[in-house]
């Protein structure tokens, strides 16, 4: 059943109790993202250390279960990864959601891979894709030091 796959326990849990929520201390990169149609807003904060590693990452904002869960899961997965890996992951995320591509482990732990893949079902709900991708677009913007807020309605 599509709906229960979309709203599986993992997603509901992250949607209700988002991890890494708030402003992380001493962040040196951040960006904002909006989805005007849905009214989802997100602000991503992160620390990229001298070795180009995402030392810490967090987010603030509000939105639907999909958008909050996606943000929460993203921060969990990206934390500790290199900038390069983070960028690879975001591209994979888009491929998974928009092209329905199955994503191999690509250096993720078993647990990380389950979380990452939990959002794959969103692809079957075209109007909700923007909700899932908003956090990842905003991550990219933060890495790129993009000052203008991201608008997922335009991008997707």
């Amino acid at each position, binding site marked *: 059943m*599509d*709906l229960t796959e979309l*709203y599986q326990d993992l997603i*509901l849990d992250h949607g209700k109790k988002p991890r890494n929520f708030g402003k992380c201390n001493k962040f040196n990169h951040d960006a904002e993202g909006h989805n005007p149609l*849905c*009214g989802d807003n997100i602000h991503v904060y992160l620390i990229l250390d001298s070795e180009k590693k995402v030392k810490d990452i967090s987010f603030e904002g*509000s939105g639907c279960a999909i958008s909050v869960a996606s943000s929460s899961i993203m921060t969990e997965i990206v934390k500790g990864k290199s900038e390069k890996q983070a960028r690879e992951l975001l591209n994979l995320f888009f491929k998974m959601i928009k092209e329905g591509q199955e994503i191999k482990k690509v250096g993720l732990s078993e647990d990380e891979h389950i979380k990452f893949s939990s959002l794959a079902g969103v692809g079957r709900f075209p109007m909700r894709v923007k909700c899932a991708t908003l956090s990842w677009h905003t991550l990219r913007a933060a890495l790129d030091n993009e000052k203008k807020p991201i608008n997922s309605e335009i991008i997707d």
Partner: protein
Amino acid sequence: MNLKDIKNQFPIFKSNKNLIYFDTANSAQKPKQVIDALENFYKNHYANIGRAVYGLAARATADFESTRETIKEFVNGTEGEIVFTKNSTESLNLVAHCFGKFLKEGDEIILTEAEHHSNYVPWHFLRKKKVNIKFIPINEDGEVEVNKLTSLITNKTKFISVIHISNVTGLTTDIKKVISIAKAKKIPVCIDGTQAVAHTYVDFKELDCDFYAFSSHKIYGPTGIGILYMKNKWIEQFEPFLGGGGMIQNVDTKNITYASGVSKFEAGSLASAEVVALKQAVKFVKDIKIKNIISHEQSLASYALDKISKFNDIEFVGSPSNKGSVFSFNIKGVHAHDASTVFDEDDIAVRAGHHCCQILHKKMKIGSSLRMSFGVYNNKQDIDAICESIKKCKKIFKLK
């Protein structure tokens, strides 16, 4: 006319047998007559209107102009005061833009906190000229507190523009009171009636406001047309809004004189086929009779409010009354978009979001809501169905 059979006149419900459409406030579905009129015009009578003297064009022009007549009768308007735009939004922009030319620094405009963005953003543009905008507040119930209007008016107040029926709460502004207060102070009034026409009585002569805006696509007509009623006084005083063919009298390289009458505000080739078909939409509503629509939509609202408020975890936006054709709510703990997706799985169309009313939503301290709105084609089974869907939603989100 039997409202039970009306649904049969809407082809969309034949091709989408299970569709339950609660998004009429966003845009109404179209009865067969309207679609047929479009087809008929394009297939048998098409020519650009108002621009040529050959018979095909003459007949198309007469057909087009007769829609103005039909609308005039429907809303009890006056000859020569109905302007066609592309949507209610353009109508309101026209008013703000043209009236804005008369304003200077420090002048004040009064709106309400319940406005749709289309009746706020155009006025916001005037802030560039340092015009100030004041808002008649809404109370916790979502009602526009018209009794606070007088205290907002100063000798700098130059214009009042208010929503007739809220597209979020369905509540009606006491526009008669607004108009009478404004009249006493000689302040012109514009009414955004986009959600009122085809849902309640609208009588321009009785209201006697300066402007009244609405959209074809929300009253069972085609997309691409807005209507602006404007008093002749303003037709004469306003400079044109858009410039182009059809709105001029004489043009040379130094100067231009404009056409008189509504033509002055109808530049370029209009949505002519749509205007021709709009006539059928207006006739459709007129035939059903507003009083029947009101009682139908009120009984649906009563039934729906009653059933939905029986659930735990329901939070209405303001206190919707059983008098409207629209209300909004949230299921606590479920974001509106998630709920809308669940409903959609059951073929129930409900809009989720801020419905272009961020100020109202912020005032009510909610980010988004689910909106249910009714049209002539809805019935009680539709409401029973959404109640089942709400149950399902609560189950998926593990609510009690």
